[in-house]
């Protein structure tokens, strides 16, 4: 199979204006991945599927990932004039990097028996712009898996034929796989030896749990 750099350059040649990015991977097999802008994802996916040298006809795995907002510390050298003399200070600034949700696609070729090529689509943020493009029109196997990512992560897949909750019930309001998800406290109270569960139950059922 071609290297990811070759795939990237061929993709960018085939689809002008497609800004791709390669994300490296520190694990031992080093499966690097391609970050695709959601607006052009479907074109890139069609190319990957239909290109005779790649023929990635099989989308094995679709997975949501949640990356929280994080604070990055930036160290900078600043020159300031104090008492008429220039002095160099080390300054530490904190910058807030907004989090995002990610849909990761693992693509293989059943015809040529190679893979994986990993595609990633990223949302703008985790709150009101959690949208990516659905690749179900290209690979049918993404249908249930994208529904699952929508259900558990709240990633909205535009162009999905049937985007509903799949594992949680329809009335459920939160996205349980997000890292900042707070478990509800309405467990049935059982006298386990664990204080936190007991405490939770006590908050929810104040009278019964104390009795």
């Amino acid at each position, binding site marked *: 199979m071609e290297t990811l750099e070759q795939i990237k350059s061929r993709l960018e040649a085939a689809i002008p204006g497609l800004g791709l990015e390669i994300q490296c*991977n520190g*694990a031992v097999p080093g499966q690097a991945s391609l970050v695709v802008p959601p607006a052009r994802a479907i074109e890139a996916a069609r190319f990957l599927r239909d290109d005779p040298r790649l023929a990635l006809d099989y989308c094995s795995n679709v997975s949501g990932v949640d990356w929280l907002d994080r604070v990055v510390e930036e160290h900078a050298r600043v020159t300031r004039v104090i008492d008429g003399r220039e002095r160099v200070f080390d300054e530490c600034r904190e910058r807030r990097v907004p989090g995002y949700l990610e849909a990761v696609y*693992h693509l293989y070729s059943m015809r040529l028996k190679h893979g994986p090529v990993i595609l990633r689509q990223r949302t703008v943020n985790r709150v009101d712009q959690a949208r990516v493009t659905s690749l179900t029109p290209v690979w049918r196997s993404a249908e249930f898996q994208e529904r699952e990512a929508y259900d558990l992560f709240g990633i909205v897949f535009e162009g999905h034929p049937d985007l509903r909750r799949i594992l949680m019930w329809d009335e459920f309001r939160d996205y349980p796989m997000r890292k900042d998800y707070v478990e509800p406290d309405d467990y049935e109270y059982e006298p386990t030896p664990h204080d936190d569960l007991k405490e939770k139950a006590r908050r929810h059922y104040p009278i019964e749990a104390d009795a």
Partner: protein
Amino acid sequence: MNRRIPEDVLIEALSTGDLVPESPSHAAVLPRPEGAPRTASEAKPHPIALGDSEGTLLEVAVGPHHPSTHGVFRMDVVLDGERVVRLKPVFGYLHRNHEKLGEGGAYLAAMPYTDRLDYFCSLTNNWAYALAVERLAGIEVPERAEHIRVITAELTRVLNHACLIGFLLQELGSMGTPIMYAFREREKILELIEALTGSRMMCNYMRFGGCRCDLPSGWIEACRDVVEALPRFLDEFENLLSTNEILMARTQGIGVLSAEQAVQAGMTGPMLRASGVNYDLRKVDRYGVYDRFEFGVPLGAHGDVYDRYMIRMLEMRESVRILQQALRAVPAGPIINPKARLRGFKPPAGEVYGRIEAPKGELGFYLISDGSANPYRYRIRPPSFINLTILEDMCRGATLQDTVAILGAVDIVMGEVDR
């Protein structure tokens, strides 16, 4: 009567079985026999009669508690007369957010939970997870452990396929007999597994870098006895079922799936190979020590329920072949990599997707490590969940009774679908 005889499928399948190419560039989709459906439109057995003049559509919820739905699984079916117009699978009744549990604990703590995914095949689930973590951290597995993993995985495959055929026949109305024959053999395999791992179903046997404990004395011999008796059971099972006219009438030409549809929908395992696509991860990925054993990959020619049944029969025979070779080849040596750590295991930051050929299809684990003791992202690619994607297409136009056969042949286990 123009029924296919099973020998016809069998010979065709075995003759194409070893065709996995050495060079990966070889096109593997086999030429289809004359008259076999090729495209999606041809594959549909009946035209859909929507909006008939007197046709009022009937909505029926099959399940969640229905004897034919393999657990708590529901199909919302829209019927026109007896024909299925629309079918939406509904599940999640058994959802316990396994992935969140996996992210909350250490890497090792997720291992016993994988037993509970597809609770028929806990050993292959263990292997898939161990394989993913081993690749993430770059842990080598000793030879002896690799052989034991192959043996346990193939025992699991026999057990799973035998039971699935039993369940399928049960749902087709053959009450009791086939499933009891299957369970009788399963019992013998479960006793082996219990002697090895201490538990019949929740084995929790594999560890990162090997297996938890060594084979008890006399286990290889006991296993060989069971394996040598399996062909007799398979002959018996085939005598009972393969040429049965009722079974043929109920399953041939039902739920036909073309190779293109199957690939497009991400089908894996016996379901995919019944449609004639030569894709078996034991051959493609060559994980473990599978490349040392000689075995075929049975392929179907028609992609219907009967082929799915037959593929499983043939795969059991191939598993017996692997088992016979593996039992002879188990080397002496350590059972676990001495460098592997049980506690305080922290793989380097990075991500990995590891997959194996589980009895139901491709079971994959996608792990993202941030360098800490628990995985940042722990994702399972459950084969039976994804094999359900195209259930509606298979059932559309079929009668309601046929949907039972089609669903039965998909081989789902709700512990894995719902996670």
